[in-house]
């Protein structure tokens, strides 16, 4: 599956891709950032609430970024669909806009099941299911 980067400032393009976030019978299409520097997947709490997740009923954890501030997140199992392929992921949901309002697609849940090829100079990213993963 091939996706295009998004140009968000004159000098910044990012691998932000459309995903389907699913919880039980509800789902929403949402733009999320492929982030190899993220250990896990994190989404804005507003998006989780939109698909019926009782955010604060989830297990609480801490999350930090490279600048060191620690934010609270709530864990829930969701399905993340990329280009028709679905994977079940334990994702964190945060009320903080500092976390990154795109949502982050991180190592655990995304890079663990897909082979991802970033081609920055062409502004494209290829995402292929990793057939070696059970």
């Amino acid at each position, binding site marked *: 599956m091939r996706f295009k980067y998004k140009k968000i400032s004159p000098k910044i393009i990012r691998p932000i891709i459309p995903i389907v976030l699913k919880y039980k019978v509800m789902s929403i299409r949402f733009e999320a950032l492929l982030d190899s520097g993220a250990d896990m997947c994190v989404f804005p709490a*507003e998006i989780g609430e939109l698909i019926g997740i009782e955010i604060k009923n989830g297990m609480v954890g801490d999350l930090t970024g*490279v600048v060191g501030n620690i934010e609270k997140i709530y864990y829930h199992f969701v399905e993340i669909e990329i280009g028709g392929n679905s994977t079940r992921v334990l994702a964190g949901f945060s009320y903080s806009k500092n976390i990154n309002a795109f949502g982050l697609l991180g190592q655990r849940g995304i890079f663990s099941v897909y082979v991802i090829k970033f081609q920055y100079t062409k502004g494209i990213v290829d995402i292929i299911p990793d057939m070696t993963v059970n």
Partner: protein
Amino acid sequence: MAINWLPIYKKYKGKWVALKSDEKTVVASGDKAKEVYKKAIENGFKDPILSYVPTKVVPMVG
């Protein structure tokens, strides 16, 4: 080549937007994701893509 979101980022800072499947046409916007999603559906767009436009774009690491 990357999809140009500069016009969206200029016009909708700090807002949620609902996009068509082309990922560049805004069909609804507002302060809350739920309200924007509802507006898009009411405007006849069955499967909009939601995105949040930050108030400021700065380089990001991590």
